[in-house]
């Protein structure tokens, strides 16, 4: 069996290699774009020498490996250059937008956990009963609704039922924290809906599987109450698989928030990304893409480590 340190080293090497490959993918994508960036920025009237000067300023005249090295170093030292379109540092722009995207993802994740856990536990008590079946069918339907469609339907519902339209009013967390959470509730719920269904489904089948295990029967014959068995034995054992599921859900939520921001008109990373795409602002675009991928890579890394701590048998695989 692999030692804990050996497993950790292996995972760390994998993490670094993945990050390198991810950065190479992003860099290659942005260096094979057709068209000369400096020429596009200056327009057709600019003279050849002006274009050359700008190209030198942007560092575009250097060979590709050097540019890759400088670009990667800039990203890792959180100084990834200046946006063409905004004339601001990329890290500052991302920093401004991050509270929206991260806040939304965090609220959505909390919603997923506080809704799916109780429902899954209740459903798994007596699988096949009416309540369980209703939950399962609703789960399938929710799973099939794209987050942005759910957002539109929620807006429709909110505007017709309560005749309120709070869309498009973003409150900064520094101004009014409760208002900030309030304006993110509806979009977070829209992102959370399909993930609640996903988490419910996995957790339910995992609890049902554990309940049929021999140790549960033994604990029962020892006279432990159902609640104690659930809290002390079944849930911790189901948690190992839910760590992986949660990391997948978190990454999906992050990806989903990019679109939902657009529906609710929230100034988050998704809208910054779209404006960077439409203005062909590549320093900004590559920065956002790399950092979002970085968050996901770290998330998967942490979840691997956490599940190996929770269940040392994983290290054998």
């Amino acid at each position, binding site marked *: 069996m692999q030692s804990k340190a050996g497993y950790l080293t292996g995972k760390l090497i*994998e993490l670094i*290699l*993945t990050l390198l*490959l*991810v950065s190479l*993918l*992003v860099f290659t*994508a*942005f260096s*094979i*774009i057709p068209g000369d960036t400096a020429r596009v920025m200056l327009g057709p009237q600019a003279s050849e020498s002006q274009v050359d000067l700008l190209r030198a300023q942007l560092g575009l005249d250097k060979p590709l490996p050097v540019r890759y090295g400088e670009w990667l170093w800039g990203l890792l030292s959180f100084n990834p250059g200046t946006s063409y379109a905004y004339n601001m540092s990329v890290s500052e722009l991302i920093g401004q937008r991050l509270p929206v995207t991260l806040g939304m993802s965090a609220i959505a994740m909390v919603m997923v956990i506080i809704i799916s856990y109780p429902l899954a536990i209740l459903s798994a008590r007596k699988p096949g009963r009416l309540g369980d079946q209703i939950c399962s069918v609703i789960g*399938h*339907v929710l*799973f*099939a*609704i*794209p987050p*942005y*469609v759910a957002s*539109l*339907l929620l*807006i*429709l519902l909110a*505007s*017709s039922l309560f005749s309120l*339209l709070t869309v498009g009013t973003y409150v900064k967390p520094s101004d009014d924290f409760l208002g900030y959470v309030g304006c993110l509730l509806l979009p977070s719920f829209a992102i959370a809906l399909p993930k609640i269904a996903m988490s419910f489904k996995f957790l339910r089948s995992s609890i049902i599987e554990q309940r049929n295990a021999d140790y549960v029967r033994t604990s029962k014959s020892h006279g432990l109450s159902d609640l104690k068995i659930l809290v002390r034995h079944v849930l911790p054992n189901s948690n190992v698989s839910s760590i992986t599921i949660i990391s997948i859900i978190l*990454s*999906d939520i*992050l*990806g*989903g928030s*990019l*679109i939902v921001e*657009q*529906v609710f008109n929230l100034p988050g990373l998704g809208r910054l*990304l*779209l404006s960077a*795409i439409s203005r*062909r602002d590549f320093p900004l*675009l590559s920065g956002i*893409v790399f950092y*979002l*991928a970085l*968050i*996901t*890579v770290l998330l*998967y890394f942490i979840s691997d480590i956490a599940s190996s701590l929770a269940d040392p048998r994983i290290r054998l695989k």
Partner: protein
Amino acid sequence: MPNTHKNRSPEASAFYTAGLILLGIVVAAFIVSLFWTPYAPDATDAASKLVPPSLEHPFGTDNFGRDVLSRVMSASKYTIFISAAGVAIALILGTVAGIPAGYYGGFTDRGIMLLGNSIMCFPGILLALVAVAVFGPSVTNVIWALGLVFAPTFARVCRVGTMEIKELDYITHAHVMGVKPARIMAFHIFPNLVPQLLPATVIGLANMTLFESGMSYLGLGVQPPDASFGKMLSDAQSYIRVAPWLIVFPALMLVFYILGLYFISEGLRVSLSKGGK
């Protein structure tokens, strides 16, 4: 092996029936739209803008007076076509990468899986958005981008399946008889992966539609004047209070298609797991 049709479980049958009905609605709309739509999908009519659903326009009209039913019917074409073409690309790429990874193991395996994992590290539609940002929005680019993004999922299925199959006696036998690895993989391993690839393909179609409609909603997928569910929904957003039918009908069709595919894959999963163990 999967259950035969004779002793299919009632649970699987219910999933198949529900799935085929939902999917059938969208596919029927697509097939009929090839020959006939009530109005031309692009025909504008200034006299009947934002008309609520009526006998003349069962799904109402939009802000240009275009018939929503006709547009929904013609939009189903892109949904079906893009998901099918994208899954085909993902399936081919995934199989070509996944089977050798599982068969050879070692360095080949690690290299291929590392590449696959790196692609999967871009959350949601991010990588597809980047590809479209670089190469420009068009249906072809969306298909290639989605095919690339989904290839690792299929590669994983193929890799795990191959690792199990290659330990079986008949593969060793074929190897001893001097059958070349490429032939073993193509004719002896691949056909046995089909039962695992089938549910993955159906789920892939559904997930790809989720992504494609999201990209079209953002304006980076199917380009106007062609109708797609995502674009219709994004255009309808400004009229959400005055003309909710502009949202409801495209959304329903989109969800029918995705849900139908999910139900079918769930039916496949149930009958595969019940028949196998």
